[in-house]
């Protein structure tokens, strides 16, 4: 009760802000929300691995990139729409994820904490180089008519395809939360995430849980990658900026918080859109991203210290 009372001024402030932005430039909200959907749908799979396996996967962006290439190849070879090619892509990514876990991550989890960081850094380099050798680094792009789907209100027209990222991120959030709270594996994963030793004492197969969670998160990356392909051009380093962005979002949301990633993406997406909306200021939008992260973390740190 006390909690919800405290939230009231925030909700009011948020509402005032939204109305203010709406009066200034209504499209900023549209673009901000769309961008937020993209960020969230890429960051969400990472929050699963960092929350439960406690690893920072620096190959996250490269896995996104690989899955987009797989979808691209399937779409070209089989003449499928990428959103249909999504299904075989998920299968391939499941295999990729499982093999990666069994061959590398599993072993590195036993070593010093930061080894996973460097291991995944190496995996990231290797993946992007393999793709470069196969496809060269020339940019590719599928042509899809529907990504230019448009909506006109009054004078302004804007693209609506990017709302699929919003839908995707919400579905992913619901899916992950249901998985963690409703399924046996999900419950085991939560237990393992909180206390691996304790979980193994009560008879949970920790290794199996880790393997499954990692695989699932790679499959989710695969889904995000297929959607990513509909919008973005493909080249071997296309994923890498999203690793750090996702990592930052997760830190901002608080490691392990699933819906927090959604809210933080929203805050960042809109903040970026606001800066982009000011002429000649788009170069500064990154600073907003990082300032918000620092402020959020600092405020949270202060709160916990007060206790």
């Amino acid at each position: 009760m006390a909690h919800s009372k405290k939230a009231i001024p925030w909700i009011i402030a948020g509402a005032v802000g939204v109305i203010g932005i709406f009066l200034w430039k209504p499209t900023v909200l549209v673009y901000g929300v769309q961008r937020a959907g993209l960020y969230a749908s890429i960051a969400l799979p990472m929050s699963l691995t960092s929350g439960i396996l406690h690893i920072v996967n620096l190959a996250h962006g490269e896995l996104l990139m690989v899955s987009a290439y797989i979808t691209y190849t399937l779409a070209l070879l089989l003449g499928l729409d990428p959103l249909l090619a999504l299904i075989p892509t998920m299968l391939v990514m499941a295999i990729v994820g499982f093999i990666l876990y069994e061959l590398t991550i599993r072993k590195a989890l036993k070593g010093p904490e930061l080894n996973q960081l460097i291991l995944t850094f190496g995996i990231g380099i290797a993946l992007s180089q393999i793709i470069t050798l196969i496809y060269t680094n020339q940019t590719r792009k599928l042509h899809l008519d529907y990504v230019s789907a448009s909506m006109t209100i009054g004078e302004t027209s804007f693209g609506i395809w990017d709302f699929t990222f919003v839908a995707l991120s919400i579905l992913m959030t619901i899916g992950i939360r249901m998985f963690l709270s409703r399924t046996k594996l999900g419950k085991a994963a939560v237990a393992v995430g909180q206390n691996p030793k304790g979980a193994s004492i009560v008879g949970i197969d920790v290794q199996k849980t880790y393997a499954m969670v990692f695989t699932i998160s790679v499959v989710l990356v695969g889904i995000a990658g297929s959607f990513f392909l509909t919008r973005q051009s493909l080249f071997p380093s296309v994923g890498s900026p999203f690793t750090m962005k996702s990592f930052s979002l997760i830190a901002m949301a608080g490691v392990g918080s699933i819906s927090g990633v959604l809210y933080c993406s929203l805050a960042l997406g809109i903040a970026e859109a606001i800066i982009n909306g000011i002429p000649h200021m788009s170069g500064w939008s990154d600073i907003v991203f990082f300032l918000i992260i620092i402020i959020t973390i600092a405020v949270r740190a202060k709160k916990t210290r007060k206790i």
Partner: protein
Amino acid sequence: MKKFLILSALCIFLVSAAFGQGTIKIGGTWPLADVTGEQGSKAAQLAVEEINKAGGVLGRKLELIVIDDELKADKGVAAIEKLVTVDKVDFLMGGMGSGVALGQVPTMKKYQKIVISTGAASYKVEEALGKDADWYFHLHPWDYEQGASYLQGWNDIRKKYPAVKIDRMFLAYEEGAFGKASYDSSKVMFGKDYNFDGASFKSAALGGGDYSAMIEAAKAFKPDIFIWAGYDADALPMLEAAKAMKFNPPLFVGAPPGWPKDFGKSPLADNVMLYGMWAPSINDVNPVSLKFYNGFVAKYKAEPATYFAPLSYSAVYVLANALQKAGKAAFKADGSVDNAVVIKALEETKYLSALGETITFSPSNIIKHQGIRNQKILQWQNGRQEVIWPFEVQTKTPVYPFPAWK
């Protein structure tokens, strides 16, 4: 018999030592993981092989040693050091990114080897070189020359096709060094005669790819010509966004360093104009281009996708022709290059290149030896890049205005 063999071997050795000193070595640095450097280095290798097959230069074979500069300055410097001191190359060649070139310039100054540069468009590189770097032959146009050539081009086009109306110009630029440089130089160039404005965006190549705010600004400006300076990764997504936002300028011009694979196959690509130095359509009007194109496709089983390929190919020919012209005097008695002689021969270069134009060298703002100054204005028509301007190499007439989105 055995004695005779040894003797003749010795003779051959002495003769080749006296006349040939083995091969003429060219050291090249390109970013090999990037399609520009990868294809540029391969095209240079193709030229070397063609020349060697035709008998080499001054009776000697050419040898190209390529080292990856990884688009990093320190790696680029180490590469030059190795090429000069370990491989003992006679000439240097290559380059793409301006950052790497800025790092390499001091080392190049130290050795004063003749350099045929295929990249480095930033005027900062020219500043770093200074006016005394007479050994530096810069093939690629400087950024400010590109700006000037576009101004020239649009003026020419307006004159020839009176229907084309250009008054309000909008330049969208990616926020990094490449886009910002384009914006700055264009603003100076076009700001006087045109109603000029612009907006920046974060390129998809660097983790961005959200063009909505920029397009909104452009749309509000109602430009006659919309130009974007970004990367190939921005090409199609930007068109898609423009279509979704019903942004429909009469001239839609892209100025990326390269284009995505199969860009022409996208229905959105049709009638998009672009800046560039080369396109396969030049094969129709230029036999050198055709020879290069066929040679490249035969050897590497891939289409040249970037103008850095014909540019680097030309670099080898420019050098080889100058050496041929300089004759034996190009090399001193100790086998080292006589810079004065070769520089003089290079200054007299008149080479009809695969890029369509004849390459000659003349002073630019600071340096003495600037090669190509023009970019071309092209247009995607039916999946092909057709040259619109300069009119000497025009392959098709322009389609104007840019048709409304279907």
